[in-house]
């Protein structure tokens, strides 16, 4: 029998529009993205569980040193999202303006604001980004 890769399954599921995290069967702690062990209690008994996709954006900005594979998307917003399930996740944010530092500053004053997860194909891969809920 082939072993199941958590990472491969995570990305394969994104193609079907499903976003998985992992929940510890021992203590209930939720980890996102999914891992083999529980960061809270150390148990190895994790179940894959879909996230609600709801989150809060706490901060964002935009850097001028993007990695090679994301250079063509520069400038883009990158922010701290708190998932409804608990974990924090850093990713690209849609629906905010990063054209000027003044715009970034003004929008950050209004945070935290609700965001919703979205699967987007970027640099040849499906990834999870979050979109501002208007």
């Amino acid at each position: 029998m082939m072993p199941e890769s958590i990472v491969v399954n995570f990305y394969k599921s994104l193609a079907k529009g499903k976003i998985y995290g992992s929940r510890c069967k021992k203590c209930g702690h939720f980890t996102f993205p999914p891992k083999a062990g529980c960061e809270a209690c150390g148990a190895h008994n994790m179940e894959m569980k879909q996230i609600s996709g709801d989150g809060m954006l706490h901060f964002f900005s935009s850097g001028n040193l993007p990695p090679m594979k994301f250079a063509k998307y520069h400038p883009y917003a990158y922010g701290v999202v708190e998932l409804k399930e608990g974990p924090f996740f850093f990713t690209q944010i849609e629906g905010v303006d990063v054209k000027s530092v003044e715009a970034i500053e003004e929008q950050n004053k209004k945070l935290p604001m609700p965001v919703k997860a979205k699967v987007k194909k970027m640099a040849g891969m499906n990834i999870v980004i979050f979109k501002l809920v208007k």
Partner: protein
Amino acid sequence: MAYAGMLREKPVITGVGCTKFGSVLATPEIKGLTFYELACQAAFEAMNDAGIDPKDIDAFYIGSMVSHTSHLYSHHTQMADWLGLHLKPGIHFATACSTTNTGVGLAAMGVASGKFRNVLVIGAEILSSEATDDPTKRKPLDPTTLWYWTDFGVDQAYAYHHSYDIATAYGGLPTLGYAKKYGIPMDKMDEVMYAIHKTIRTHSAKNPKAFIETTLEEEAKKAGFKDPFEFWKSRKNPFLAWPTRVKSALNTVDGASAYIISSESEAKKFCKKELIKIEGFHWSSSNYPWYGKDPTDWAIDKTSFETAMKMAGITGDDIDYLSVHDCMQIYHLIESEICGYFKKGEAWKAVLEGRTLYTGDKPMNTSGGRHGKGHAFAASAGAEIYEAVKQMRGEAKGRQIKDIPEVAVVHNHGYGMHSAVTVLKR
């Protein structure tokens, strides 16, 4: 609180060495040197400083992070004869940019266990260029490729592929978070970051082994600015990730650092220098990201500071000299408050008042830090151990802290994230 184990005896630092930080393609003091020779320059300085006969070094630990540029694995086998330590126990080890902070604890445990009398620790890194098939020639390296290789140090399963943005995560958001937490207007925050930078440049200009040899004021004047703050805010210093400007970030450089850890009884046989005791150390590891809702609340550093300081039996009030990992200079504020060198929300005021200068009552990063001294990843922390020892021996010359520090605490981050803290006492 993590388990705070104690050593059965307290080893000492007997010798330190450090090369000039710069580029092996251009900086006269290190120009043309290979990885081997760069490492030897620092190691031999440390051996001479300690006054130790190489035959009494029982083991050596050598750290290096980016194998793509050093073009080496098995640094320990390739370096054994270069170092004059043929057949000695050698290992390669790494915790990325905190490597040579971690090395203090590793070597101390080797000595305190009784297995070794004296251990040499070396860190070396070449980031300006990559090796070619001809060992006499190196090829300049573009920053995008360097960071592509460096980013192997951050979560490659998920985070990197989710639009990873190092400048925002490491610099922009912690700076924004600090300002928001303490109600500092953003234009005032820019002044604070300017003050931190001016301080580290004052230090690096007085450190002959630093990469940047000029003060900010001198650089501004040369660029045609009467007011250095106008220069700071100009297009010459754009935002790397708002509100973090380019000059608040590291400069990648080439360099090597080294030190020798000995048992106190052995040290007294050969070392004529003041012995610097290793009172405490601790390390903490976390995957990315290492913070959440509050970009200044870092459990990883709380863990390493608290545990190392408990091991040493000190509090933040006991620290006379603090060195923090400043690949982003905002960490001067965050780390100095985490360890209790300053009260929460007070560090930014202290910086504006010049208290963290070598002449101030709360000196920090007198080497010039990762911008002024430069950041040679695995060698960087060792350069700060070198600096702390020089300060504690009263050998720091033009940048000497007037009241020679009794207790020094050195903190470093390793990419992705690792936190290492070492407590030294004279």
